[in-house]
């Protein structure tokens, strides 16, 4: 991608051959699409800098149009959502082949995201709960959806639903990552700007600043050099001082183990960080990093002093998987629960 002079928005005066972008979503909620819309009028700058070849949410397209493209025809594909069905896997592979650069966009594509918590169950358990056990469901004959059904008038097909949620990188080769649930409009614009200017970092980079959420957070000033707490509180049990570090208040906050750049939006809503932007620079496993940080805060490594019982504190940390891997279970060293079959 040729370099060029940046104007005010950084994207206006693009070179003659426009870039070709594609957007796609798999197992996700649509929030990443709304985040793109939330760049508001700047979407017009993006459209000026790049042709959007494929954006199901916004533009007409057909699979066969993509199939007909030469390999590498798309310059950059922004792919959001995790991989849960055969159809999502198929389109991820197709888009990888047709794209020079593949960006995992949002926490689900990068790490599995909240839908990745479904790796604590398998398909049968998910179906069981949704179609058979739910108290509002009346299903005496035990009907569950099938991938192939013969109805009176003919036959119908549904894509297969997998047991395990996978990240995009577990499915295809990924060049860049932009985690966030959803990524902020500012970070999206920075990433697009870097692409347009041809100033992308080395392959495999996470397109976020080299810092933690604590570095973004105004409450960080209230965090002492050596932090230790005597009780773990859950947010609904605590008073939640709007200016004090959550960890000082005894409330678990994933800020120290989470990559920053978001502007600490959740703490601005007076709630702790839950970790949506994934591990800090040079960390691989976000949950393990947070557990390590927390064990020093809880004094687990210290000698037991009189009246101080770290085991009691640790027992106050409930649902460690859901707490420390809320967005990153499929990408973590844990990946999923043991399958019984």
């Amino acid at each position, binding site marked *: 991608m040729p370099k060029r002079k940046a104007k005010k928005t950084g994207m206006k005066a693009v070179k003659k051959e426009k870039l070709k972008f594609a957007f796609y979503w798999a197992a996700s*909620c649509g929030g990443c699409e709304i*985040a793109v819309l939330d760049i508001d009028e700047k979407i017009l700058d993006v459209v000026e800098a790049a042709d959007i070849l494929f954006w199901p949410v916004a533009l007409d397209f057909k699979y066969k149009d993509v199939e007909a493209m030469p390999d590498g025809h798309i310059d950059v594909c922004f792919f959001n959502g995790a991989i849960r069905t055969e159809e999502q896997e198929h389109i991820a592979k197709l888009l990888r082949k047709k794209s020079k650069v593949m960006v995992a966009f949002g926490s689900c594509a990068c790490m599995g995201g909240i839908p990745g918590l479904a790796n604590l169950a398998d398909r049968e358990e998910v179906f069981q709960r949704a179609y058979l056990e739910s108290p509002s469901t009346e299903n005496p004959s035990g*009907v569950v959806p099938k991938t192939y059904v013969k109805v009176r008038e003919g036959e119908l097909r549904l894509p297969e639903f997998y047991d395990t949620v996978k990240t995009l990188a577990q499915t295809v080769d990924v060049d860049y990552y932009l985690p966030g649930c959803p990524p902020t409009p500012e970070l999206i614009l920075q990433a697009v700007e870097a692409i347009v200017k041809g100033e992308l970092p080395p392959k495999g980079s996470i397109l976020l600043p080299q810092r933690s959420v604590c570095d973004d957070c105004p409450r960080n000033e209230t965090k002492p050099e050596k932090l230790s707490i005597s009780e773990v509180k859950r947010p609904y049990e605590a008073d939640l001082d709007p200016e004090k570090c959550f960890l000082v208040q005894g409330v678990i906050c994933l800020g120290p183990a989470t990559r920053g750049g978001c502007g600490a939006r959740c703490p601005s809503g007076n709630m702790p960080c839950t970790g949506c932007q994934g591990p800090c620079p040079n960390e691989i496993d976000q949950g393990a990093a947070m557990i390590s940080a927390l064990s020093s805060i809880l004094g687990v490594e210290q000698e037991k002093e009189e009246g101080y019982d770290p085991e009691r504190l640790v027992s106050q940390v409930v649902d460690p998987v859901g707490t420390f891997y809320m967005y990153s279970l499929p990408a973590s060293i844990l990946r999923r629960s043991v399958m019984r079959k």
Partner: protein
Amino acid sequence: MSKVVTIDPITRLEGHGKISIFLDEKGNVENAYLQIPELRGFERFCEGRRAELMPQITSRICGVCPVAHHMCSTKALDAAFGVDPPSAAKKLRELMYCGYMIYDHTLHFFYLGGPDFVVGPEAPPGERNILGVIKKAGLEVAKEVIKHRAYGQKITAMLGGKATHPVSGLPGGIAKSLSEDERKEIEKMAKSSVEFSKLALKLFDDIVLKNEKYVELIKSDAYTLKTYYMGLVDENNKLNFYDGKVRVVGPDGKEFVKFHASQYLDVIGEHVEEWTYVKFTYLKKVGWKGLVGGPDSGIYRVGPLGRLNAADGMATPLAQQEYEKMYEMLGGRPVHSTLAFHWARLIELLYASERAVELVQDDEITSKDIRNPVGAPGEGVGVIEAARGTLYHHYKLTEDGMIKKANLIVATTNNAASICISVREAAKALISGGRVSDGLLNMVEMAFRAYDPCYACATHFAIGKMPLEVKIYDHEKNLLKTITRP
């Protein structure tokens, strides 16, 4: 010769919705199936999580309407922990909710479903999008649209931490209070939204209601479906988004049942079919009779028209005037025209804006008394009106405050059966003797888009149009004809 007509994808992308229309030997529509090929299994993986994370976890069910799940979940936790939030907290929650409604209804009317109507059902599909709306309504209007969608998001973010996937809901109240500076800013945005809503209604009046052909279309049989209707109402049976009792009226408009959220299992059942991942809800007392409307079928509709039909009126003065005007023009309550969803949506936009002004001017709104201590964890049901309809969250907690069981009935699920019927009726009107009119695509789109279905909620984004392809096969599955969008 039997044929199958497949419209795949019906939404913004292949795989998120598919319509198959089966023709009988005479070439008339025998049946139509709308399939939803997605399931993410939230109910299962919520089990074992910390209860207080539910408002944030369930928000990820939908990134277009995250505030609805966040708030419904918070209300379910209030009930499960046996706590009544302070009145200032309830007002802050409702104010945040009004911000969400302003954003979501604006998004739908101007970006997603509304272009069908504003630009015109017969306009080329390439023009039936936000750019077409700008062309027809003018650049000044377009600027207002962009501004007020962003205002809605901003109000939500100021109270919720962030707009997409807010964080401030807690059992017993809300985590963040409102400063006087923030209050003033929201007041300005809310007042501006009232003017914007009036502008949107005037636009609807000028472009749609003054055009006899459009009015005829609204009233036509192809878009008429007689069902029960459901929505939240306050103590005066006026429409409410945030709280109250759920009221159901029959196809005749008479009250069928009014119930507290905790009784929802007595009223609503869910039916499972093998051919789609979505479940179909129905009124248990009437029963599941298949995909048919009328008083003997338990199918009901939710969303803007469902709410207006289920309520005796609007709780704010300007919205009440518009409510009266709609029923006067369309022959009294209830209105069964599917396309009237669009009109009802704009009346609700006005109500949300007026209500936001009331709340932001309330003396209590900047109070710091925004949390009450929770009681022992138990079981609770929360209900709220999402933009697309009534939403239920039902949790059973362990004594440690963890999720033991969760059950969710999502807004679009309530409408799933009706959407299938509306699509089938539109197909019937357009297909006869094996001839498939090219207008089929437009008509079918309009039928289901009126509901603003969540699995298609992003269909018409920005410069968008919906990709559609109809495939016609003979009985041996040989492709006879393919109709695609120009």
